[in-house]
């Protein structure tokens, strides 16, 4: 029964493959082998920090595209895309009343692929609002908010609010007529509340009217405060999906 395995004589391809992928440095980065066996496929999901958002196994019905339409995943994908294009846009944009509008114009005229960055950021932002709303509808109609997932639905509602706020704060940054008056209309709604409305509006836009104060506030909220908050809630959201037993299934 027990036979000693003797290595086959190895060709150049095998030795090259070994040198590239079985060397000390490579193995220090990727702890599991190439995921072409069930063992390695589970290891790669369990040991990779990005992939370990997933369980290693998943029920057959959850892979069906019509079960989730990938809506939550696509919302997260858009968030990542918005982060990348957003960082690139920050290189060229100064949130001052004097420069903001010109910087946006320069994106279209002077910056290589600047128009692409800005357009992608804009359309992905609209897309994210739509995706998040559709994701909410998916979760509702599949009854996925039911016990034990009640609290994750609440986290989802918070994320919906954060998504709207992210989009709203970004809306002002181009500093054109569309931006200025949309934010004026929007913040006037807040200001119309009795008693607490006007002070709240004042804090929001850093003055009595939309101006330099509003621009720097919205910019700071848009590029750092709200994304960090959203990322935190997303971490809780994803964590809770796993803790609450993965995607909802019929009992």
């Amino acid at each position, binding site marked *: 029964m027990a036979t000693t395995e003797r290595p086959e004589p190895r060709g150049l391809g095998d030795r090259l493959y070994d040198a590239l992928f079985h060397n000390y440095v490579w193995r220090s980065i990727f702890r599991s082998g190439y995921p072409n066996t069930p063992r390695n496929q589970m290891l790669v999901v369990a040991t990779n920090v990005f992939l370990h958002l997933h369980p290693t196994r*998943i029920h057959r019905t959850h892979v069906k595209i019509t079960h989730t339409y990938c809506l939550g995943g*696509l919302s997260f994908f858009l968030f990542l895309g918005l982060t990348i294009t957003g960082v690139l846009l920050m290189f060229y944009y100064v949130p001052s009343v004097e420069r903001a509008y010109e910087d946006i114009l320069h994106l279209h005229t002077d910056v290589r692929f600047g128009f692409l960055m800005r357009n992608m950021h804009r359309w992905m932002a*609209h897309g994210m609002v739509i995706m998040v709303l559709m994701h909410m509808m998916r979760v509702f109609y*599949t*009854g996925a908010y039911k016990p034990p997932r009640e609290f994750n639905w609440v986290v989802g509602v918070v994320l919906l609010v954060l998504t709207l706020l992210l989009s709203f704060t970004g809306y002002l940054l*181009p500093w054109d007529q569309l931006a200025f008056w949309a934010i004026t209309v929007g913040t006037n*709604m807040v200001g*119309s509340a009795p008693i607490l409305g006007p002070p709240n509006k004042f804090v929001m836009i850093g003055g009595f009217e939309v101006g330099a104060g509003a621009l720097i506030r919205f910019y700071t909220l848009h590029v750092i405060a709200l994304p960090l908050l959203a990322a935190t809630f997303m971490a809780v959201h994803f964590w809770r999906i796993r803790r609450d037993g993965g995607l909802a299934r019929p009992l």
Partner: protein
Amino acid sequence: MVATTPETAAASAAVRQKARRQRDEELLVWPDLVFVEFIAAMVFLLAITALSITIDAPLLDRANPAVTPNPSKAPWYFLNLQELLLHMDPALAGVVVPTVALVALGAIPYYDRSNEGQGEWLSTPNAWRLTWIGSAVGSIGSILLVLFDEQIHVRLFTGLTGSAWPSSLNWIRNARSIQNDLPWPEWMRSIPLGNVLRTDLLGLPKLDLALNIPELFVSQIIPVSLMIGLPIILSIVLWKTGEAKTRRDHMIAQFSGFIAVYIVLTIIGTAFRGQGMELLPPWEVKMPIS
């Protein structure tokens, strides 16, 4: 060691069998799920890139506080609230309604605690019917209310009969006419309350309130009763007719109605409101070029 009786042996075999069957229903995340996610991400990346190359993000003239475009509109996802603003008190439309809506949304799982219909699309017996009923009531109801405030019945009446709207019925031309065309006693229009809220105690400016009952009636009481009353009537009708039997059923109808109202008001606010926020057919609504 526990002695193995035939019963326990059979039971543990059944448990193992069940576990094995469950395993058979499972797939490995790599490659089965990761592949789907990758494809979805790539399709979206390509679609967004194509969209961004073909359509430029809007950019109007430099912001100018002195020139107010007509109409000035909020971002599209807030246009439903801006639409409400035309029909009721601004504080109600801009603050109270969205806050209550979000809290109600977050409260759904704490109201509907059953496990029925979990994990499958609209899986309770009446789910599809209730979705359609809720959406129909929500969309038709909000369209009718917007049209009423737009005096569509007055226009229809004059168009069909050729005579003017009877002046005795002036007070139901729209919501606002209840305030203006009914013979309210003059004292009702301004009842001084002084600083009843004692805002000075909170360090806020003193607030001298005056109660305007006709105004309160039109911009607060009617909208609030409609927004709370109509969903309640919907649920009562569904309950009495036996369409909705469980909390899940009621939630499906209410949620569908809410989504329908949200979408309808967003579309009206985006595509049907032109200069001065007047109700116009979409082809006559132009973006202000200022």
